[in-house]
């Protein structure tokens, strides 16, 4: 008996009540290998105004390019204590900040490697379904041939690539609507 997936509904303005127990911008545990990177940014609406009630959920591989999930059967090591997901909310100015390890490359359906990336769900009041996007890293030659980036019109690809502001600091913004609108993927 097959029934289609349940309809999405917005998280509304009060989601912190149910979801913030897992929210954190903590450093990965000291034993987890890989370069640390701190990503900051803002979530902005179609008027360029901050979105103070957005939540980002991230999912990524570890520094070896291995996901902590049974369907990743690659012969690569797991990192105990590194789950690969974070939840981070925006503040009154629409700002968010999290620190993680830079993920390694993971395989693409075309048989090549995907450039290092973090997949992101954006949830907020006003979003009836989540928005799905990706964060890529600057100075990565693999970005030029990446499976997902190649599906995006070249002028819009830069919305998915973080900007370097320091040795381990990146900036990446989420523009929900309007000029510079972030690329969101169909899910």
């Amino acid at each position: 008996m097959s029934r289609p997936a349940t309809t999405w509904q917005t998280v509304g303005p009060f989601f912190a009540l149910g979801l913030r127990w897992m929210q954190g911008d903590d450093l990965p545990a000291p034993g987890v290998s890989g370069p640390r990177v701190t990503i900051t940014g803002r979530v902005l609406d179609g008027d360029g105004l901050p979105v103070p009630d957005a939540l980002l959920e991230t999912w990524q591989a570890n520094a070896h390019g291995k996901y902590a999930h049974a369907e990743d059967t690659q012969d690569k090591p797991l990192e105990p204590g590194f789950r690969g997901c974070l939840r981070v909310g925006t503040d009154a100015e629409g700002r968010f900040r999290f620190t993680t390890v830079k993920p390694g490359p993971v395989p693409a359906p075309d048989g090549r490697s995907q450039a290092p990336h973090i997949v992101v769900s954006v949830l907020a009041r006003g979003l009836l379904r989540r928005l799905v996007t990706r964060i890529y890293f600057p100075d990565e030659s693999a970005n030029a041939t990446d499976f997902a980036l190649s599906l995006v019109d070249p002028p819009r690809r830069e919305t998915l690539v973080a900007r370097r502001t320091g040795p381990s600091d990146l900036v990446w913004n989420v523009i929900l609507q309007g000029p510079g609108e972030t690329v969101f993927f169909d899910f």
Partner: protein
Amino acid sequence: MGLAMGTASVVGYRRPRPGTQPEHLHPPYLSSVKRAPRQPLVRLPHTLSEVTGPVFGADFVGSNGQDLTHQPSGEALGERIIVSGQVLDEDGRPVAGTLVEVWQANAAGRYRHEIDQHRAPLDPNFVGSGRTLTDTRGGYRFLTIRPGAYPWKNHANAWRPAHIHFSVFGPAFATRLVTQMYFPGDPLLDTDPIFNCTADETARRRLVSFFDWSTTTPDYALGYRFDIVVSGREATPLEAG
């Protein structure tokens, strides 16, 4: 198993059937107007990044998140209810061990959240958040109180029907779902722009829970049943021996 990289074996998750999920822009819901993207979404075949997803263990989730009615200070006010159901995929297979999170207003229609300014009392014995992992049959169960309806600013005399927010991960990043459960017979459903954001009426009606005698507990609580379906696999992989 075939290729060393395993790349050819990624089977994606199904895309929504037309009309069964909301469009991002739904003008009757005013908050969507400046927040919905206007550029077309880019279709991305699922890769290993989307068919994997966060996994949470019992030690992380804890075991005391299923009862929302008791605090150390006392018992919550309101009509006690038991909300239970199954998390299934689109082929009817149970999704075991997945995280289900809920949050809701109290019996007076007030959220324990700093930005909720509704002139209704907070209940010192009610927080309004819960979480659990589904059991081996995909089952979950919460003991809570029936939330109240509350006004909001979307349009003149706007009231949200009573609802409980549900967040479910499912087996992969691709199966993430956040929804709202409603109550049968609520007269506010017909005019609620959030409930009505999805075109398909059958899909909307499935957001309404059923009153359930089988979980109604004598002298204690009414039962409501709410099953949740997450995306299924595009093609059934051959069952491993």
